[in-house]
């Protein structure tokens, strides 16, 4: 009888122990700070969470008006002396320079070699491009979104047909104003999107000279790519 009583006691202790451990409560023993709520105070959210990628909504850009999608083959590299005959302006996929453009929240004041930027898109970056004549206030508003934010970069792109355009690998959204609410939606839907990005986890860090110098980047080439250019589908 005593043995049974002991067994029951042990069983109870074990069971209680298990249930307590599974409560998911903080275990910071000995801390004297008052327990803060696990949820942040609810505030007006700037961007709806509706546009973040999930297992069931791998491509939230489908919910954004005006997004163009194209399926590009990743991993096609060219060397720094070559050009790619891109099929879109600005391009958002296809063959690209082996060195990517630094994209850790970089605001490029001048237009940059397109073949380098396309490589950044393959790493999960979002590129905001704008017409060189865009107003200073609008450029500032865009720069504020980009500066020092990982996996974002921005630069002028001569000859694009809207004031502002956003590119991620295989997706593009052209807009007329920096106030357009779809800008944040597009960023939310595509930035480091593990389903759309061919190389999730790839770096946005600057390679540095001679490969890609963030402070003196290879410039945009306004001339036609020429007959010896590599096709967007690779050489």
């Amino acid at each position, binding site marked *: 009888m005593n043995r*049974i009583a002991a067994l029951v006691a042990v069983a109870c202790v074990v069971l209680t122990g298990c249930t307590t451990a*599974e409560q998911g409560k903080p275990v910071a023993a000995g801390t004297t700070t008052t*327990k803060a709520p696990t949820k942040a105070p609810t*505030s007006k959210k700037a961007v709806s969470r509706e546009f973040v990628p999930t297992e069931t909504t791998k491509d939230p850009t489908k919910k954004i008006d005006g997004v163009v999608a194209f399926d590009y083959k990743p991993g096609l590299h060219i060397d720094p002396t070559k050009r790619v005959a891109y099929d879109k302006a600005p391009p958002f996929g296809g063959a690209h320079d082996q060195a990517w453009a630094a994209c850790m929240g970089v*605001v490029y004041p001048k237009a940059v070699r397109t073949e380098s930027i396309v490589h950044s898109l393959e790493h999960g970056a979002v590129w905001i491009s704008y017409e060189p004549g865009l107003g200073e206030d609008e450029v500032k508003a865009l720069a504020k979104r980009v500066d020092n*934010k*990982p996996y974002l970069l921005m630069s002028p792109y001569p000859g694009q047909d809207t004031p502002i355009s956003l590119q991620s690998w295989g997706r593009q959204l052209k807009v007329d104003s920096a106030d357009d609410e779809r800008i944040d939606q597009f960023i939310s839907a595509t930035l480091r999107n593990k389903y759309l990005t061919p190389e999730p986890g790839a770096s946005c860090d600057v390679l540095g000279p001679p490969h890609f110098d963030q402070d003196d980047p290879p410039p945009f080439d306004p001339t036609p790519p020429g007959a010896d250019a590599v096709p967007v589908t690779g050489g």
Partner: protein
Amino acid sequence: MTEHNEGTPESTKRKIFVLSGAALAVLLVGAAVGMLITLSVVRQASTPTAESVDVGFAQDMQVHHLQAVTMANWARDHTTDLSVKSLAFDIEQTQLGQIGAMSGWLDIWGQPEQSPEPGYMAWMAAGSHGHTTEASGGVRAMPGMATSQEIAKLRTLTGRELDVYFLQLMLRHHAGGLDMARYASENAATSQVRNLSEKILKGQANEIKVLESMLAERGAKPL
């Protein structure tokens, strides 16, 4: 217990024993089933939500770590000082690994790598650390983060100047991340986040001492 029932026949004793055993078996099976149900319910209910400490920490600490990796990468590639080189390599590899862990959790929890909100640290209780502002839903820059201009300056330096500035930026960066790590270690709901944040807290606190002594060896002070 049986001492007062001297007249009880052996068969009755046995019956009591068997019945007690059966009752205990039923109790244990029932408790085990109950525990399994509880486990599955708790597991489901504990998938951290977008506003949780766990998700907020995994997103913001990733961004914080990414900058440390950027600085360490640059220093490792450009320093000529072997002890700075090995420290930079250590920081870069450690933080990249931790970024991978945080990224994996976010994937499983169905949350994006980086918060779609403009502010950082909204997941930390407003006001408790003096960093968050209630209405704005976070801060524009996390403590310890270098500005783009500071990172650009780092890229212009060479030799001892590069080493000193890297150590200074990294010291401030490490110190700046401690509040977030401490808060998560005390308030996160999942044991994995509590564990990693505690390891970051202790690891970076130790590395701060290394950074301080390396600065002193080079006759320099923190920023």
